[in-house]
């Protein structure tokens, strides 16, 4: 650990050297650091610190792992006047994120109906290629409107309720989305994919509340032990990927044009105020809005599937959105820097916003307690619901971890899984699973991931997000 300096039990500093503009800071326990320190992701934390306009630190959360240019689990705030915007700092799956839905159901009500419930969800929630989006024949004109207006547009179309909008980060719409900056190719990919789950690590999961750590906060979220909740994890699908790809090309040219000196070409970026920077921002926001719509539509489909399978009314189910959060995003936010409140462009790549109490961005109901932060784990173990703090506002630009973080490659994971019946293995842990992709279950098996409790405990110990409840999966569908 020679290159890293331990600041306290949960925090390490990557000292400033060479052309780094700021130091790096990595949140981790000693146990997690043993994996992190030998990974190229530490170099990536250092590389991000070279970007023009970076403020305070190049930050990494404890679920950090190697990404393209920026590490996954990375957070970087850029000066809104002199800083840069980088598509690599957001990632390919723009506004990949999660939403947590509560229901009126208890474990007792569904434990014998999990298989038919999963089968219905599996039939009704489209995965992607080979299936059709939930909104067929979405014209480019309608798609433009949808990516400009965000989740409220699909609510107008009948997917979910107005109440949902208050419980989505940014109320389900990033202002300044510019559909004209999204290529036809991206729109072509997106027009078929509204309401599709996608493959890889994306999922829809039925959980029960296994343990509550903070009753007062849990009660504000309307949660009690053994209650059934649902998690949806997906993003902007092909539209977001294409936006990232298109703008990586333009920002690579911008790097030369504006003479930005980079240690890695995947950090391609453009000054925030440049034409290239503004173009990416307009397109990225549109893709983010697509993702909000996508999760909103899937919520509606899931609600219908629950009601149909269990033969219950909307009132009996009462599927309510606790919160929807972004994992891959860049946003202008006000934060305190050296005692002054300044606007910075916060890049979160595989990181979650975790605003503390009384933040004006939060719905009224959550202002006394802070923002819900859902941290999904692997599909065999558990996920955590946490809450943001004031310390997150001062130390991490209101950011926290986003998941368990992979520790094993997909090829290695598949090889190990070959000797196991993963469906039976998960069933023995009380988890039913259905997946379309033959290799998906093998690639996504629990031992491919870090234990999410190790990750969450670091953020809880550091006071950045506090644990509220642990959720245990009982049924998972994957693309």
């Amino acid at each position, binding site marked *: 650990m020679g290159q890293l300096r331990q600041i306290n039990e949960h925090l390490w500093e990557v000292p400033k050297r060479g052309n780094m503009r700021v130091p790096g800071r990595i949140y981790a326990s000693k146990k997690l650091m043993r994996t992190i320190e030998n*990974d190229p992701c530490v170099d990536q934390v250092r590389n991000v610190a070279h970007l023009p306009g970076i403020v305070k630190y190049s930050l990494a959360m404890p679920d950090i*792992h*190697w*990404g*393209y*240019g920026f590490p*996954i689990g990375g957070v970087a705030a850029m000066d809104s006047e002199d800083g840069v915007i980088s598509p690599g700092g957001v990632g*390919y*799956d723009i506004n990949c994120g999660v939403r947590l839905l509560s229901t009126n159901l208890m474990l007792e009500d569904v434990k014998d109906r999990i298989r038919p419930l999963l089968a219905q969800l599996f039939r009704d929630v489209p*995965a*992607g*290629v*080979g*299936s059709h989006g939930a909104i067929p024949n979405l014209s480019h004109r309608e798609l433009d409107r949808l990516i400009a207006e965000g989740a409220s547009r699909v609510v107008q179309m009948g997917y979910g309720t107005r109440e949902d909008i208050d419980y989505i980060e940014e109320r389900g719409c990033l202002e300044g989305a510019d559909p004209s900056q999204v290529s036809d*190719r991206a729109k*072509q*990919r997106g027009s078929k994919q509204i309401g599709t789950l*996608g*493959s*890889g690590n994306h999922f829809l999961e039925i959980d029960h509340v296994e343990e509550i750590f903070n009753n007062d906060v849990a009660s504000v979220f309307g949660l009690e032990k053994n209650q059934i909740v649902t998690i949806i994890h997906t993003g902007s699908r*092909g539209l977001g*990927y294409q936006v*990232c*790809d298109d703008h*990586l090309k333009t920002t*690579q040219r911008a790097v030369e044009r504006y003479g930005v000196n980079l240690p890695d*070409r*995947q950090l*391609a970026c453009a000054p925030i105020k440049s034409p290239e920077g503004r173009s990416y921002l307009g397109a990225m926001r549109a893709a983010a809005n697509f993702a909000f719509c996508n999760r909103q539509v899937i919520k509606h489909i899931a609600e219908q599937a629950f009601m149909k399978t269990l033969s219950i009314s909307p009132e009996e189910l009462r599927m309510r959105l606790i919160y929807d959060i972004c994992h891959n995003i860049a946003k202008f936010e006000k934060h305190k820097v050296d005692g002054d409140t300044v606007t910075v462009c916060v890049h979160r790549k595989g990181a979650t916003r975790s605003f503390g109490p009384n933040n004006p961005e939060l719905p009224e109901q959550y202002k006394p307690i802070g923002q819900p932060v859902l941290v999904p784990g692997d599909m065999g173990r558990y996920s955590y619901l946490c809450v943001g703090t004031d310390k997150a506002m001062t130390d991490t630009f209101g950011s926290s971890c986003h998941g368990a973080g*992979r*520790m*094993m*490659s*997909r*090829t*290695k994971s598949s090889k190990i899984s070959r000797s196991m019946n993963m469906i039976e293995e998960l069933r023995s842990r009380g988890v039913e699973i259905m997946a*379309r*992709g*033959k*290799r*998906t279950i093998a*690639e996504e098996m629990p031992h491919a991931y870090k234990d999410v409790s190790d990750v969450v405990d670091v953020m809880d110990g550091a006071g950045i997000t506090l644990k509220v409840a642990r959720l245990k999966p009982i049924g998972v569908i994957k*693309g």
Partner: protein
Amino acid sequence: MVSRVSQKGYSLIDHTADIGIEVHADDFPTLLERAAGALFDIITDVSKVKAEDHIQITFSSEDREQIMRSWLEELLHRFYGEEMVFSRFRLELSDGDNLTGEAWGEVFDPDRHDLHTEIKGITYHQFEVSFHPGKKWYARIIFDV
């Protein structure tokens, strides 16, 4: 696995979050054919893909890395746009440095084809297309999945 790799001219790279390939070939057109074969080999079981439809793509760029990217991106675009999967590829040099690529395949049918791993993008991460005297043509490509 080993024989399959050598037969198809590529091998998989172990990468934590995604899937990468290394491709070797005696000439650049073959390198492109093998990279495309690897792309669809990861996506589906290509032995079940019938060569019913045919597409043609021409490249005029002299930049080999750019040609590789354009070729794979175009094929991926056909996969997402028209839901086409391909099992056979042919690249030919035409006048000067111009290249013509052809691919044969069919529309993805979830009843007959398995979707193994959805490849979403061709990254710039460690991307390399190079010619080494003796070692011949080499490409390293990391796919975002």
